[in-house]
């Protein structure tokens, strides 16, 4: 596995080659070449910014359709807490969970239920690992991907505990196998996701060797079906909910951090803000911080590109929903399967996250010095307009592309125009010389 699978992909027929996405990509992973956007997948962290900004809807996220249920004998839906924030006037989560079963799932397991377990484990981990402070959350896969390509110094700060959805998948699989007696491959664990980053994380996970998630559905494609079913099942609601305020709070920025029940934390959302926090953390500008929660999307998971509701409205809805809920329900669940799962499943990471120096220019230091000097030289020729006409987001990025051998100087309109002027001057001079010569 190359671990560079990206769920954000391009629809070439829709792409017009404009420069909106190249300008917005936080890792400068996109170029326009031959009139079409090209994503360098090693640089892409699946944040979904380009999906948000593309006016032609040419960027899309790959995810599964409900047909995936047919591939398995027994299926379990894992709804993200964000799903509840899409619905109006919801006061009983069991309605949503029962509706998911009516959609064709055999069972449901709330991701927010596993989130409460992760909160419990994190509380203990943060307390016991002061040398690692501030510990950086790893629930958002885009953040982990960003850190492994851009912030190697911060890898030791990562919280080595599975994301709630991965733990939920492991527990759900274990429970389903015990309940049905079916082998693992006949059981489908399907996540209902707010974002494409989770699609990639399920396929090429970081921190864990293999994900227990078999398929990922988008909240936006499940939502219309759910609102059709919900009014019809009000008489047959099952008791399926297993989470409280802490678990559901994970859908909103600050939810994970507040679940630690500590004071010295910082929670940032929106990829540009996150990058600023990581830069400052790298320069050791924070003191006394114990935990840093980071969310690539504005507002947290409610801001994911696969959701339908405005993230800030979804946040209000979630807050209203949890108002009268118990703080957490991990202690209230006494079912045998849950206790066994807790004993049998290792919730920690079992694989190192390695630094991937994808932005490196050369092979060795000598080569790097040479190439960086060339980048500087090129930058002094370019107009520093960052116009994007060459297909790279900035003049500096074009210079780097040239040094990497994937672009040339004349891709810059400014350079090209100067060369054309020079050429036309030379031609007219030549023409004049010839005309003068003819008069003699």
């Amino acid at each position, binding site marked *: 596995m190359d671990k560079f699978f990206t769920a954000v992909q391009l629809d070439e027929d829709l792409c017009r080659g404009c420069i909106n996405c190249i300008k917005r990509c936080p890792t400068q992973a996109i170029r326009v070449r031959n009139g079409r956007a090209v994503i360098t997948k090693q640089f892409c962290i699946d944040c979904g910014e380009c999906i948000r900004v593309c006016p032609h809807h040419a960027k899309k996220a790959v995810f599964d359709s409900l047909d995936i249920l047919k591939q398995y004998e027994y299926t379990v839906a894992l709804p993200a807490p964000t799903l509840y924030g899409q619905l109006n006037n919801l006061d009983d989560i069991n309605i949503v969970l029962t509706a998911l079963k009516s959609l064709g799932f055999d069972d449901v397991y709330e991701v927010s239920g596993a989130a409460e377990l992760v909160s419990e484990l994190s509380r203990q981990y943060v307390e016991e690992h002061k040398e690692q402070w501030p510990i950086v959350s790893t629930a958002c896969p885009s953040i982990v991907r960003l850190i492994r390509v851009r912030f190697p110094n911060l890898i030791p700060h990562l919280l080595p505990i599975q994301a709630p959805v991965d733990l939920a998948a492991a527990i759900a699989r274990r429970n389903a196998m015990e309940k049905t007696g079916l082998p693992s491959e006949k059981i489908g664990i399907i996540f209902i996701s707010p974002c494409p980053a989770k699609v990639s994380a399920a396929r090429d996970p970081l921190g864990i060797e293999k994900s227990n998630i078999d398929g990922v559905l988008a909240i936006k494609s499940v939502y219309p079906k759910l609102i059709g079913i919900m009014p019809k099942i009000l008489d047959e609601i099952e008791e399926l909910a297993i989470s409280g305020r802490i678990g559901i709070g994970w859908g909103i920025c600050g939810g994970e951090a507040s679940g630690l029940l500590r004071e010295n934390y910082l929670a940032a959302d929106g990829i540009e803000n996150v990058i600023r926090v990581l830069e400052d953390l790298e320069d050791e500008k924070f003191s006394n911080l114990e935990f840093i929660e980071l969310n690539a999307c504005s507002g947290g998971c409610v801001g994911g590109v696969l959701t339908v509701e405005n993230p800030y409205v979804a946040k209000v809805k979630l807050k209203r929903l949890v108002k009268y809920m118990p703080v957490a329900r991990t202690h209230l669940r006494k079912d045998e399967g849950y206790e066994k799962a807790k004993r049998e499943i290792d919730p920690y990471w079992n694989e190192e996250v390695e630094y991937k120096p994808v932005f490196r220019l050369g092979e060795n*230091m000598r080569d790097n*010095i040479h190439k960086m000097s060339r980048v500087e030289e090129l930058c002094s020729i370019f107009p520093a307009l960052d116009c994007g006409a060459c297909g790279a987001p900035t003049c500096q990025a074009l210079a780097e592309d040239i040094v990497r051998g994937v672009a040339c100087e004349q891709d810059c309109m400014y350079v090209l125009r100067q060369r054309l002027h020079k050429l036309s001057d030379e031609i007219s001079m030549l023409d004049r010389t010839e005309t003068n010569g003819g008069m003699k």
Partner: protein
Amino acid sequence: MSECIELRYEVSSEDFTRAGEASSNVKKKLKQMGVSPAAITKVAIAMYEGEINMVIHADGGHIEVTISEEEIEIKLCDRGPGIQNVEKAMQAGYSTAPDNIRALGFGAGMGLPNMKKYTDEMTIDTEIGVGTTVTMKVKL
């Protein structure tokens, strides 16, 4: 002589929002050049401290960064008031920063000591009324 690359940055005075621009630019370049994460941390922290110092005490100046195969040299040059007592300035907690700077959370007296701590070599050339040049080296 081994190959090297020279970078130059102007540091403007009294503008805290821009202080740190030069060090983060250098940090980005070092990452692209495959410099070890540990060395990058040293350079980023020491250079940021130096940049802030130039803004606080010396009305700005300029920074010259030389990257070779063996080491990274950072030369912080200002035309500020000069340092009265270098030995004292090197003591942790000693600061001459005015109150308005302290109010911003700076001036804890850790600037020069931290710069020394994070670099392999540091020399200070200073002349009262003329300026100060701090040269730091991080070995690769």
